C-alpha cells in the first residue's frame, strides 16, 4: 500500500510511454506528462542526495550548537524507535554507533534509506533483523549532520 520512491520512478517512466502511445491511437494531443521528480522537489518531504565520504568533516571539540539541535531532532523524530543505550527498540540502540559505522553510512541511512536498502548489504541485514524499514523522517543533510554530532557526544566524544 505504501508507495516507495523506486515505484514512483517506475510510474513516471510508465506514464511517459502511455502519453506517447495514447497520441498514436489518434486521441488528441495531451498536455505534457507530469514530472514526478518535480513534484517531489516542491514538497516538504526531503530525500537527500547521496553523501560521499569526503563530503563531511569531523572536528574536536564537538560543535555544541549541533549537539543541541541534534538532540532536539532525536527527541522529535528518532526517539520513538532508537534508544541511546545498546538496547534495540524498533531499530538498533545508538550507543557506539559512530564507532561501528562510518558516519557517511549513518547519514545516508537517515536521508537515503531507499538507496541504502537497495544496495547496501549491511542495511539489508538490519532490515531482516528489524522488519521495519527505517522511515524517511524528512531530515535534511544538515540536520543529519547535527544528529551525528549528538551521536558522537552519546558515544563519549568531547
Amino acid at each position, binding site marked *: 500500500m505504501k508507495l516507495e520512491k523506486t515505484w514512483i520512478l*517506475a*510510474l513516471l517512466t510508465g506514464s511517459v510511454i502511455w502519453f506517447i502511445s495514447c497520441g498514436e491511437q*489518434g*486521441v*488528441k494531443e495531451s*498536455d505534457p506528462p*507530469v514530472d514526478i521528480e518535480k513534484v517531489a522537489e516542491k514538497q516538504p*518531504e526531503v530525500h537527500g542526495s547521496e553523501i560521499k565520504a569526503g563530503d563531511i568533516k569531523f572536528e574536536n571539540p564537538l560543535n555544541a550548537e549541533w549537539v543541541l539541535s541534534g538532540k532536539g531532532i532525536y*527527541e522529535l523524530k528518532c526517539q520513538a524507535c532508537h534508544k541511546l543505550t545498546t538496547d534495540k527498540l524498533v531499530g538498533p540502540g545508538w550507543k557506539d554507533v559512530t564507532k561501528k559505522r562510518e558516519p557517511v553510512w549513518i547519514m545516508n541511512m537517515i536521508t537515503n534509506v531507499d538507496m541504502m536498502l537497495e544496495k547496501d548489504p549491511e542495511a539489508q541485514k538490519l532490515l531482516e533483523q528489524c*522488519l521495519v524499514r527505517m522511515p524517511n523522517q524528512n531530515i535534511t543533510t544538515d540536520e543529519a549532520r547535527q544528529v551525528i554530532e549528538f551521536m558522537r557526544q552519546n558515544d563519549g566524544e568531547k
Partner: protein
Amino acid sequence: MQASLLLTFFALTLFSCKPKGTQSAVSGDAATKVYVAPGKYDEFYNFVSGGFSGQMSVYGLPSGRLFRVIPVFSVDPEKGYGYSEESKPMLNTSHGFVPWDDLHHIALSVTKSEHDGRWAFGNANNTPRIARIDLKTFRTAEIIEIPNSAGNHSSPFITQNSEYVVAGTRFSVPIGDNQDVPINTYKDNFKGTVSFIGVDPKEGTMNVAFQILTPGINFDLARAGKGKSGDWFFFSCYNSEKANTLLEVNASQKDKDFIMAVNWKKAEEYAKAGKGQKKPVRYAHNVYDEKTHSAKSTIMNEVLVLDPKDCPDMVYFMPCPKSPHGCDTDPSGEYIVGSGKLAAVIPVFSFTKIQAAIAAKNYDGDFDGIPVLKYEAVLHGEVQKPGLGPLHTEFDANGYAYTSFFVSSEIVKWRVSDLQVVDRVPTYYSIGHLSVPGGPTAKPHGKYVIAYNKITKDRYLPTGPELAQSAQLYDISGEKMKLILDFPTIGEPHYAEAIPSSLIMNNSKKIYAIEENGHPYAAKGEGQAKVERKGNEIHVYMSSIRSHFTPDNIEGVKLGDIVFFHVTNLEQDWDVPHGFAVKGASNAELLIMPGETQTLVWKPEKVGVYPMYCTDFCSALHQEMQGYIRVSPAGSNVPLTFSTGTNLPTEPGK
C-alpha cells in the same frame, strides 16, 4: 392545457425511452482508449458530487478509477470525519450539528476563467451550506452556512477570478422577524435570495459578502459570465407562478420562466456604497486550521441584503422557455444557453444583445418591479428540435456545445455559431448533468464528455432494489461522439468537473511537518507522550510510529471518566497514516496523517481491560501496533500510570 399535455408526454417517455443500441454503440477500440495500465497515471482528475451521500468523490479519467471519497457534508467513520473532536465543528450549523447533506454541484476555482487547481467548492442543498475543499490536501477546509435560504441548489457557481461563489435559494421562504405565516400566503410573504460569498484571493477564506432579495421564485442553476460578460451572473429560475403546492403542475403553467441576469460588479458597488441593509440572522462559519489540525465554528449574526428596488440597473429577467435548468455561458462569454426541462427548443441568448436591450430599455413589462427584457431582443437564436428535456450544456474548444437530454436520454452536439445539431448519442439510462473537462471555463480541454446518469436499469449486476449509480465516458475528439466506458459512482452524481492532473498533482501535500504541528495536545516526539487527569477527564498525549503507540499501557482510568486520546502521528513519510481504535468506543476510529494530531473521545461503561490498536496497515509489524487501557470501578485507588516497553509504570509527575 398545453402544460398537462407536455407532462403526460414527459411521463410516458420516462417509461419508454430506454435507448436501443447502446451496446452496439461501443466501438472496438473503446477498451484501449480508457485503459490506464498499472503504474500509469490518468490524464484528468474528475471531481464528482456524491448527491445524497453528502460527499465528493475523485475519479481518474479516462480510466474511471475511484481515487478518493472526500467527506464534506456527511460524517465519515472511515476517516473519523465528524467523529474526531477536531472535525466535529465542521458540521456545526445554526441548527446545531447536522451530520448529513445533499451535495449537488462542484465548482473548481478559476483565474481568468481558467482552472487554477486550488480549490473545489460544493453545495449543501438541504441545510444550505457551501464547502471549500483544499486541493493540496483533498480535505474540506471550510464550510459556510447560507442564511435566508432553503434548498441551496443554485450553487456553488463561481466568477471568473473566483471573486465570488454564489448560492441561490431553491425554495423561497418567509424572511425576517415573523416566519410563522400560513403557507398559502406564499405570494405575499415568501422571498428568494441569491447570496454572493466572497473568496479571499490568497487563502480562499469565504464570507457572505451580500445577498440580493428577489421575488418568491425558485432558483435552479447559475453561471457567471466570462470575458466581456465577466461582470455578470446568470441564474435560471422556475415557478414564476409562485405556487406553493403541487409544483409539478402548478409551476408549469406559464410558457416561459426566467433567467435572472445580475450585474454583480454593480451589486458590489451598491454594497460598498451602503445601499444594503444589515439584517439579523444566524449562520455558522466553520474553518479548519491546518496548523492546529482543528476546526473552529463561529456563529455569525448579520447579513447585508440588497433590495433591487433600491439598486437600479442591477437585476434583469430574461424570459426563458420553460422551467429552465441549465444556464450555461460559452467559453467566449458571449452566449448564454438556457435549458428548459419542459421546452421543445434550446434558447441561446447573446450578451451583446442583452446589453443593447438594457440600454434601449427594451422591456416586456416587469416582474415584481424588476424589468423583464424582451425575449426576441436578447435572443441569439433557438436550437430547433434538439431532443426532449434539455438539462445542461457544456462546451469544447472548437465551438461546439453538448447538451444532455433527460427525457430522450441522449447527448446532442450542436454548433454554437449557427445552432445546427451535428451529432447525437444515446445515454444509458436517463442522463442528468454532463461534463467536459474544462467545459465551464474559457479554456475547455475537450477530449471527453461524461454523462452522469439518474437511473441505471439493466446496466450492472443487480444488487437488490437499488442499482449502481453511474457515469458514462464518451470520446469527443472526433466528429462523432463515441461511448468508451461505463463506471459506477457514489450517491447520485449530480454534477462534476474535470481538470488536467498536472494542475493538481504538482501541489499535492504529502505530509504535515511535525515541527509545525500547533495542536495544543500534540506529543511532538515520544518524550512528550504522557497521561494527565483534569477532574474526570483523562487526557492521553499519545504518539504513534511504525509500529507502536506511546504509551501503550494505561491504568488508573475509573468509571465516570472521559478519556481523550490525542494521537500524534510522528511519521514524516508520504502515505504512512496510522489509525486508532479502542474497543467499545461509541463514535468511530481516527485516521491520523503523518505529522498530524487527532482526538478520539471515549467514555468507558464497564470495568475491564480494553485493547486499542492501529487500524491502517502500516508495516510488517502493524498487527503488533496495539496496547491496553485498564478501567477500574469509580472510587477505586488504582493510581493513574502509563508506560511503553516496560512493566514498570510511570506515574504522572514522577
